[in-house]
């Protein structure tokens, strides 16, 4: 009788052991797969970027005539001297990132890629662009230069008075 008692639990233990190792194997494989995904994501995201600084020195305010819109192609910003003061606008279209252009004959900003149109203050007139051109943080440096931070957008109509 004690022999019979021993055989049944023994087979149950054998089965449990196999199931345990299967689970252990699958579990460690999924942990390894998750680790690989994290590793791949981290590897593919560069930690150091060699990109131009977001802060641009736009020069002396006197170099911008009243009621002028000046596009800096390299930094992708408009520097606008309005009656109320100076402000900077991103020249990158909010649709798909093309560089817009100021059309002095029409008095509007237009995108050559898909035809979006904007007012001088950045509001959208028409076109596929979903959002207005953002205003960028602008201030006067200690040396009296106009500085623009392309990475910081501000609410519209915050002019810099000189």
């Amino acid at each position, binding site marked *: 009788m004690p022999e019979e008692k021993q055989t049944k639990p023994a087979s149950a233990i054998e089965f449990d052991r196999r199931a345990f190792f299967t689970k252990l194997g699958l579990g460690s494989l999924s942990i390894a797969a998750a680790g690989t995904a994290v590793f791949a*994501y981290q590897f*593919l*995201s*560069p930690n150091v*970027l*060699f*990109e131009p600084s977001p802060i641009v020195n736009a020069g002396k305010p006197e170099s911008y005539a009243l009621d002028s819109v000046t596009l800096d192609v390299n930094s992708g910003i408009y520097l606008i001297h309005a009656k109320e003061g100076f402000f900077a606008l991103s020249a990158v279209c909010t*649709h*798909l*990132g*093309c560089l817009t252009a100021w059309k002095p004959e029409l008095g509007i900003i237009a995108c050559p*890629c898909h035809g979006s149109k904007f007012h001088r203050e950045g509001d959208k007139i028409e076109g596929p662009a979903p959002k207005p051109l953002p205003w960028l943080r602008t201030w006067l440096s200690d040396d009296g230069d106009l500085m623009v931070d392309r990475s910081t957008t501000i609410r519209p109509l915050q002019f810099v008075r000189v």
Partner: protein
Amino acid sequence: MAKTIASYFDELRATRIWRSIFRSGTGSSTLHRALAIQQNVFLHLFSTKVRRRMLSFSATWYLGTLTFGTFLILVITGILLMLYYHPSVPQAYADMKDLQFVVSSGLFLRNLHRWSAHAMVFLVFAHMFKVFYRGAYRPPREFNWVIGVILLLITLLLSYTGYLLPWDQLAFWAITVGSNIASAVPVMGDKVHFLMLGGNLVNANALLRFYVLHCVILPLTAILFIAVHFWRIRKDGGLYAHQSEPATVQAQTAKAKEAQ
């Protein structure tokens, strides 16, 4: 009697060196011809027998074969162009211009690569239309249609990644626009954009990433799926022949029995 060209080939096939490479042996019997296909690493993907009328132009317009032909031209010309092209910001555009004006036959190879790329996209679409309108995508060939859709995507991605490599204004703005489309993906759009370009702008990292995708990752993936695509033709009963399709024949006999 003068020796024919065919007899020279027969002698060549009988030599020990030939026999050591090709095990199928000499002779033009059906068995030998079948073995010649079956025992060749490149040809064994294909059916050993093909219906004669499937080889006629009207059956397929040869669109799949022509697509594969442009792919081979692109691989060969692409490898040659790689010998003169550096995927770096100061050099990429100048290297492209050097290929046009300085390197012997460079202009020819670059244009051949470009025109074959256009032709391949056109032929892939034509091939898919032909397969679709003939109904050749239907079971048991539905999985091969899926492989074909994957190959279409790889073809378009190859075109897109290759577009950046000349590093001119057209390339820069096309990739700027295209990568911004990727950032429209919900939730993770900006992450996808950042990983794709290796930064926030189309810059040195983006050029290098697109180069590696264009020259290594995408072509290898394409070759893998092309192999599966060809092998599935054999596994799914050969090229789609409208009348002799086993399912069609079975349906026809069933109908004939019903009529009796």
